[in-house]
């Protein structure tokens, strides 16, 4: 087990910089998820930790030791690849034991480690099969097993579930979570799926275009995002953003007018620096934070466009002037399209962002 520290880590491909000075501290035994849209640099960051990509600047330390110039095999890490990267010509048993055999590990110890990994992942029955004779989920288990037999200090997962169907993904998610509890080692997991991030992580690192946007526990990011990007990326369905303008400032509060909703106003108490009067701002409201008319601080009329009924809840995609809002409604299964209704917003359940996307607290 080991802590992982990234200090001002930079990655350039030629002159093109893709990671701009990442600073991340991962505690011993912690499960950290790097999440962000495609091209944000999360896989590159993981591959730099693994040693599969050179580091253009900064330092990476594993277990307190700087590993910038340490060979991948000597970093005490094991990696599970998105495409599994199993050796196609070897049986499951050979796949699991290959690295140990190549390094002259004692036969008895190799057998012990392979047996243990097979038991943990319930793949005992598959040992003599080849990868092409396995399902996607089984292949993923073997790939994880190959990481387990190395008995690493740090596990690295590069989008390991993205090739699986939805049902299997949920199942494997639970298994990875269980594995983390059982092994208690540090795990770094890369995904673009915020649901995976929310369900697996002790802490999430949100990345955008090579920058770390925010690091925090899943619910902290959900409830208290640092900026509009994190607010929109974390949560499904995503947060609604409503254009607004500051019309009054008084007693540590800003009154904003929702510009596309007939002059509806909301007084939002703030604890930080106040925005300028007349500033254009954005009000963020999660789908489940719309209330019945009159229950909140500000009512806005909407027209239902499409409704998704998921059983326990329904999501109504509603037109509100030029903006489309996603509204979570309970017990509204019978609501038809084109219904007009009014929803209410509470100041305490909304977030305010400035024009650049920074949070106004």
């Amino acid at each position: 087990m080991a802590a992982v520290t990234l200090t001002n880590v930079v990655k350039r491909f030629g002159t093109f910089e893709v990671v701009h000075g990442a600073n991340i501290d991962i505690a011993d035994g912690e499960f950290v998820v790097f999440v962000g849209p495609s091209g944000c640099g999360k896989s590159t960051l993981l591959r730099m930790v693994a040693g599969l990509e050179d580091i253009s600047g900064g330092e990476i330390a594993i277990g307190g030791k700087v590993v910038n110039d340490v060979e991948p095999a000597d970093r005490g890490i094991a990696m599970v690849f998105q495409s599994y990267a199993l050796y196609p010509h070897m049986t499951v048993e050979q796949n699991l034991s290959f690295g140990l055999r190549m390094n002259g590990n004692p036969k008895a110890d190799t057998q012990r480690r392979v047996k243990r990994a097979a038991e943990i992942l319930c793949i005992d029955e598959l040992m003599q099969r080849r990868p092409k004779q396995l399902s996607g989920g089984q292949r993923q288990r073997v790939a994880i097993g190959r990481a387990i037999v190395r008995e690493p200090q740090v596990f690295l997962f590069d989008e390991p579930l993205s090739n699986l169907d939805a049902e299997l993904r949920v199942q494997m998610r639970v298994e990875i979570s269980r594995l983390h509890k059982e092994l208690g080692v540090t795990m770094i997991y890369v995904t673009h799926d915020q649901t995976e991030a929310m369900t697996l992580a002790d802490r999430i690192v949100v990345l955008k275009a090579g920058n770390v946007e925010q690091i925090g526990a899943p619910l902290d990011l959900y409830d208290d995002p640092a900026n509009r990007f994190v607010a929109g990326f974390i949560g499904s369905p995503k947060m609604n953003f409503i254009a607004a303008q500051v019309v009054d400032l008084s007693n540590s509060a800003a009154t904003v007018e929702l510009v596309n909703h007939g002059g509806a106003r909301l007084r939002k108490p703030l604890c930080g620096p106040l925005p300028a009067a007349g500033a254009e701002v954005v009000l963020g409201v999660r789908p489940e934070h719309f209330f019945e008319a009159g229950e909140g601080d500000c009512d806005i009329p909407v027209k239902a466009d499409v409704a998704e009924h998921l059983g326990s809840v329904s999501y109504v995609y509603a037109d509100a002037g030029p903006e489309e809002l996603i509204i979570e409604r309970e017990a509204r299964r019978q609501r038809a399209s084109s219904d007009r209704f009014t929803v209410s917003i509470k100041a305490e359940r909304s977030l305010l962002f400035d024009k650049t996307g920074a949070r106004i607290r």
Partner: protein
Amino acid sequence: MRYRNATAYRFLTPYLLIFAIFWIWPIISSFLISFQATRTVPWRFAPTFNWGRLIGDPAFFNALKNTLLILVIQVPVMISLAVVMAVLLNSPLLKARGLYRFAFFAPVVVGEVAYSAVFRLMFSLDFGIVNKLLNSVGLEKIDWFSNVTPAMALIMIAVTWRWAGYNAIIILAGLQSIPDDVYEAATLDRVSKLRQFFYITLPLLKPVIVFCAVLSIIGTMQLFTEPFLITERGGPGGGTETLGLLLYRQGFRSLNFGYASAIAYTMAGLAIAITLVQLWLTREPK
């Protein structure tokens, strides 16, 4: 559906007719000719005449021995060389990869007569560059054309020069289909580059290498150009005569079509048999 099939066959008919006349019929016809004595007029049906001669003909066994010798020495050497060339071509460190790829492939498109003439000049006893190089490092000149062993070596060198690059390009395609992350996984497993080559690259290239070997076996069984042009019709004294050359000599110089047909079928049979044995030996375990 049946009407659509009929229409398709009507479009195919011109091709099928030409295929039947110029491919199928000659194959059947030569098989029938192999059972006829063709040195008499008119030809007469004599089922054992050519096949019986084949079994006891020293010229046939000499050509068979030469062909198999080239096959067991040259083909493995050439395929091994092609694998090495493909790995080098695939190296990310290599600059001007396209140029090398073209250079390796170029011998295939060079005219056979031209390249044979160049080889004869290069290996000439008195003014060939090869003997000059041997002399310059203190070795004696070799008479490549008058002694059987050097002549045979020359044929093998020439065939290897001509086809190694071609096979390397095919193997390169196979190499490029091996995903990078398999090697990355091996790197994380602390497997050295050399061991990665023997334990990952070669096993994963096996289907492509088998394919190249099958093509080479078929090609070698039909080998004709090099012994005909470079060592002057299988010289010295039939020392480099191959089955292809014997077939040509019997069919088109002695006009003994029956015997030539029997040789042709023997060549095809041997190529199929060797290929089947090879495919069986290199089959994927179930």
